[in-house]
């Protein structure tokens, strides 16, 4: 495996490849902001953001040392690695709320997630091993509702009874813009879904070799996130649009607005512990829910999946 | 009435230069003409031109026999490997719209006439060279064509089979009076079967000359030993020899 053979780049900084879980978008804004404002460079890091996609497996990249750090989309991803004893640890959680939503047609009488029972539900493969577990546990949904989701909302629009998964800033916006339909949107996190979103994970090899770099990355990213939500984002947005030409300022502004409105980054423990914070209590809550559903054995050492040691000091 | 004719035709194949001609040949209704000439002079090409399978580079080709009225025996058997001997022979009949059962009956009869009773079910790959050629001949004869073009039909056959088939073709001619042009390397065969023997020169073949064969058709017993037969054969051989010498 072509692991980082030379960990110093020509600039003398530590090379750090960070793999995201999707094409560059507003939800990656904090990292791009840190890059654009030089927060990483300032701390001796030469960060390269590698865009992901629907079939890019960050755990695989990380556990084979193909990248130093990567993004974890939700707690399932993290605990799956613990289950398989992958040498990877989660070091920070930048989204206190996962941005997964469920979307329904506005006029079919779905007022709460519970009303979706019996409706065909478009879920991606990954979600079927993720949020579906929680949905079944909490709402008693059944597998015969499952339909495949290919990241296209066409099938949803074709059939009014269908509900589907989505990403807070993406699908609802797309549906409204292209089909002129304002769908009913339900943020799972606001209905008790206990997972974090957009975490930073690091391979054990990298942690062992450059713990300071990990700490520096977490710190710089936290600053980047705060800044992306509140300061001027032109430079970061430019980087995003360079990486992903399909992105528009419009879309980015929309995502930023939503992240602020829903308190994705700064709500909950973050108010006290700062951006990026994780707590043992929150991890335990998620583990109890998932293992209660039989996804994980009760005796899984889930604490091996994360570490709190790189978290930034709580703001005074 | 002229059934088919070549007038000053020349054939060129790409950069290999002229292969045949200028050559003229006219076939009158109901006559039997033999075409002889050295290997590579253009006999097969002339046949293909008359059948309309190819066009000449220069010159004109006319043909009065319509589609489905011409039969051809290629120099190689050219059978469909996936069809039995019977089905190969029945093919032209079925193409002309005859019911399969009747066509196959007629095909079997035709195979019997060329001495292949017993090999009806065999595939081309299971036949000897001479047998395949006879299947090809049976296929050409079975449709009772108006114009019959035969390219060395008996070359792969032994003398006895050869003579039997020659008499067979003459008998068939007696019945339906088709126009027959056949290529042969056997001068005696040419003289025995044809009313007229046309000889070509080597190289890009042109007319070396022609001889009319006198005598009744079909040939009476012992025709091959008559003085006239010997003399004509001699003359044709001379035509070929002088044509070759001139080239």
């Amino acid at each position, binding site marked *: 495996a072509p692991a980082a053979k030379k960990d110093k780049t020509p600039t003398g900084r530590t090379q750090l490849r960070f793999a995201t879980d999707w094409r560059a978008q507003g939800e990656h804004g904090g990292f791009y902001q840190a890059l654009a404002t030089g927060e990483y460079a300032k701390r001796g890091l030469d960060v390269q953001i590698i865009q992901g996609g629907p079939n890019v497996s960050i755990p695989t990249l990380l556990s084979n040392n193909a990248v130093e750090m990567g993004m974890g989309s939700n707690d399932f991803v993290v605990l799956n690695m613990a289950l398989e004893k992958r040498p990877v640890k989660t070091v920070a959680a930048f989204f206190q709320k996962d941005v997964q939503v469920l979307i329904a047609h506005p006029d079919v009488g779905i007022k709460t997630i519970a009303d979706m029972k019996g409706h065909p539900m478009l879920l991606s493969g990954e979600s079927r091993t993720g949020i579906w577990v929680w949905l079944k546990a909490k709402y008693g949904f059944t597998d015969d509702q499952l339909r495949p989701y290919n990241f296209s909302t066409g099938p949803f629009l074709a059939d009014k009874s269908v509900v589907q998964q989505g990403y807070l800033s993406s699908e609802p916006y797309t549906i409204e813009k292209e089909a002129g339909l304002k769908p009913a949107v339900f943020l799972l996190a606001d209905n008790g879904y206990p997972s974090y979103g957009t975490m930073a994970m690091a391979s054990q090899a990298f942690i062992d070799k450059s713990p300071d770099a990990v700490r520096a990355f977490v710190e710089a990213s936290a600053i980047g996130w705060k800044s992306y939500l509140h300061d001027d984002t032109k430079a970061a947005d430019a980087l995003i649009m360079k990486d992903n030409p399909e992105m528009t300022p419009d879309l980015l502004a929309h995502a930023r607005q939503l992240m602020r409105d829903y308190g994705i980054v700064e709500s909950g423990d973050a108010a006290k512990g700062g951006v990026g914070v994780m707590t043992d209590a929150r991890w335990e809550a998620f583990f109890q829910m998932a293992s209660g559903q039989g996804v994980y054995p009760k005796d899984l050492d889930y604490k091996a999946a994360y570490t709190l040691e790189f978290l930034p000091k709580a703001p005074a | 009435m002229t059934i088919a004719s070549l007038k000053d035709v020349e054939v060129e194949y790409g950069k290999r230069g002229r292969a045949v001609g200028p050559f003229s040949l006219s076939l009158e209704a109901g006559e039997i003409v033999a075409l002889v000439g050295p290997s590579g002079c253009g006999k097969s090409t002339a046949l293909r031109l008359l059948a309309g399978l190819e066009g000449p580079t220069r010159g004109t080709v006319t043909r009065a026999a319509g589609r489905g009225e*011409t039969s051809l025996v290629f120099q190689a058997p050219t059978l469909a490997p996936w069809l039995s001997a019977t089905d190969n022979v029945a093919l032209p009949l079925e193409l002309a719209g005859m019911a399969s059962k009747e066509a196959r009956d007629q095909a079997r009869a035709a195979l019997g006439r060329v001495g292949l009773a017993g090999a009806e079910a065999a595939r081309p790959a299971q036949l000897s060279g001479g047998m395949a050629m006879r299947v090809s001949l049976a296929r050409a004869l079975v449709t009772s064509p108006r114009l019959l073009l035969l390219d060395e039909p008996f070359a792969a056959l032994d003398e006895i089979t050869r003579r039997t088939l020659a008499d067979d073709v003459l008998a068939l001619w007696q019945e339906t009076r088709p126009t027959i042009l056949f290529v042969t390397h056997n001068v005696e065969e040419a003289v025995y079967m044809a009313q007229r023997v046309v000889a070509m020169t080597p190289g890009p073949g042109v007319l070396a000359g022609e001889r009319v064969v006198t005598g009744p058709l079909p040939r009476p017993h012992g025709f091959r030993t008559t003085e006239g037969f010997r003399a004509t054969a001699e003359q044709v051989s001379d035509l070929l020899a002088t044509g070759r010498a001139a080239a």
Partner: protein
Amino acid sequence: MRRIVDQVAPILLLALLIGGWEAACRLMDIKPYFLPAPSAIWTEAIKDAPLLALSAWGTLSRAFIALVVASLISGLLALAVSLSGILERAVRPLVVTLQVTPIIAIAPIVQIWAGVAHPERAVISLAAIVAFFPIFSGALTGMKAADPDLERLFRLYGASRWQTLTRLRIPSSIPFVLEGHKVAAGLALVGAVIAEFAAAGGGVIGLAWRIQESLFRLQVAKAFAALLILGIMGAAVYALLGLAERRILAWWRGR
């Protein structure tokens, strides 16, 4: 004796290969998530055997239907097209376009057409699209590979287009059509799996879900076990078709 060697040697070779793989995994301490060892794959395959068998059967049966559909449609289209040069020139680019269309891209649309309630229909349609082209192209190439002198004979005997087609071109195309089916069978199988990835929900039981779920759960050996089953099915289908090809060609050649 010779025969036994011929039978055993390939198996030995394969065993050697697998042994080397296993040894490499153990000696070089290759992490199972980089490349799982054959023994680990085998263990998973045995452990999951009933579920894998069920899934494999689902995929295989859909692939089979897709192959039959592709074979029929491409055969008929090739026929229609070869009756008219104009039609051929109009249809060929369309068919190529269909071949180069990634089924992942049209899965959502096919899903809509097939109806969200019938994912297996969508899977079969998509797999048939993948398997379509080699048969079509083979049939077209084969129909043009007829002996030119036989073709001339047909013209001479006044055969109609239709007669030339059924009695000359179709039989002549058989070797190429068979070759097309050998390629298409594998494509139908892998097409069915990709189509399952793309268009089949939990409602359709197939290998794709086994693979995908294992990959999401980071159980690489389990995913490889499913791939192994897929490979065995593919090899078996290919071997069967190869046998059929030999038989049919022997009949075709008449010896």
